[in-house]
């Protein structure tokens, strides 16, 4: 009986949280015109979300690509189909690994920074001060950061994919001796524009989700050092789970 009541309470809590996220999103959309009239604010956030994540994205992309090249080579050489390595690496990067890993890295690098920044601004009354100055922090602070993330993630994903394919090329062709021409021609043979479209749709959805979670957690953090710390952790956890769930849903819709 007590257990049932507890589950009920948890469920009610989760539904309330979902509701507050939706409400938050609507409020933010209302404040969008303000942000869009100040592209400079968004540009700075694209810099913060994109440029500052570049090193980790490129490094990770290259190594993920190399691993894909190595594993792919191992599997295909058992089948005597080494020529398919390029196609397999490109497909797995473009359709799955690129969008998912980029979103997870983004949550860890830029998402946590966004949450901490907004949470700290709240804790130090900077957001309140703006309200008193008759400036909506949703438009001035939250919306540009959301847009910055939303725009940066698809580009980061494209960069991750390209570097990853080069990583697979490096291992497959340079180290393992897969035929250079076969690597690229088989890739072009099997990857089509639909695969790339799928990757872009995913990265847009993941970028939106990751950015929304990050700014929401920051904006609703407790006004204490501990509250901001907890919110940062939640950003990573919630984004990771959300991205994996979304990934399954989008894949099943698009396949």
């Amino acid at each position, binding site marked *: 009986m007590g257990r049932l009541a507890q589950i009920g309470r948890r469920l009610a809590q989760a539904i309330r949280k979902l509701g507050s996220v939706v409400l938050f999103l609507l409020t933010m959309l209302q404040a969008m015109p303000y942000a869009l009239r100040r592209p400079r604010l968004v540009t700075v956030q694209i810099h913060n979300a994109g440029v500052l994540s570049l090193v980790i994205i490129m490094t990770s992309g290259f190594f993920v690509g190399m691993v894909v090249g190595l594993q792919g080579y191992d599997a295909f050489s058992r089948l005597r189909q080494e020529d398919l390595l390029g196609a397999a690496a490109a497909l797995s990067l473009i359709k799955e690994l690129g969008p998912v890993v980029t979103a997870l890295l983004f949550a860890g690098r830029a998402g946590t920074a966004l949450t901490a920044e907004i949470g*700290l*601004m709240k804790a*130090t*009354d*900077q957001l*309140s*001060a703006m*309200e*008193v*100055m*008759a*400036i909506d922090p949703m438009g001035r602070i939250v919306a540009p950061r959301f847009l910055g993330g939303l725009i940066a993630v698809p580009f980061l994903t494209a960069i991750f994919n390209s570097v990853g394919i080069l990583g697979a090329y490096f291992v497959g062709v340079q180290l393992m001796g897969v035929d250079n021409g076969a690597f690229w021609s088989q890739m072009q043979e099997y990857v089509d524009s639909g695969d790339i479209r799928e990757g872009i749709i995913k990265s847009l959805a993941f970028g939106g989700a990751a950015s929304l979670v990050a700014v929401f957690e920051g904006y609703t953090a407790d006004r204490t050092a501990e509250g901001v710390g907890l919110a940062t952790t939640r950003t990573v956890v919630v984004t990771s789970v959300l991205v994996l769930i979304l990934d399954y849903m989008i894949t099943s819709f698009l396949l």
Partner: protein
Amino acid sequence: MIEIDDLRFSIAGRRIFDGLNLRIASGTVTAIMGPSGTGKTTLLRMITGQLRPGSGSVRVDGREVPALDRAGLYDLRRHIGMLFQNSALLTDDTVFDNVAFPLREHTRLPERLIRTVVLTKLHAVGLRGAARLMPSELSGGMARRVALARAMALDPDLLLYDEPFAGLDPISLGMILRLIKVNNDVLGVTSVVVSHDVEQISRIADYCYVVSGGRVIGEGTPEQLRHSDSALIQQFMSGAADGPVPFHYPASPYRDELLGGRS
């Protein structure tokens, strides 16, 4: 300027205001005093419309604040400046940009004119030379003066100060005190100063309210309050450790508790 009638408000199940009444006249310096946690900051947030009361009326400049819509609130706030307890400067912007912030948002002044206004305001608080510094490079007192310059940027009619003396060295404290006085005397700004520093506030306040337990328990000029016959106000004004507000948090008798473990 400000009329608050029968204000009631609860947050997270706790009653903060329980029938609070007060009046603040235009052009005066009014002090609001009271122990920590009585809701002084909350009261200021009601005046700026950031919080809505449970019931009762908050009128600023004749406008019923809780009834204002977003546009009305924003219009009202353009005439209000507020100095936050922890300054609340934008950490990513220079001192100059912090003071310029409300001007750039709310006016279409050319950058040259904004520069003039900002430097004037910074000069008034004695920090024109610090215009290029970042907030992290300022001392607490300097940060509060910059925040004051920012609060004054749009020449407000009403300035709200939340604990302006807390945590300041005597020199910085003297500067802030003087700035509040000058703003009031020279510019005719109505000032509301929240503080529990009785000694300092008595030097500049025209009128004081003592708030405790969700209502006003005493009011008058600093002189009147000092001679109040209420024991609670006496304790508060003189800073006695024990009195109607007991030194000891409610507890079981000392003797019983110490011996309790053995018996």
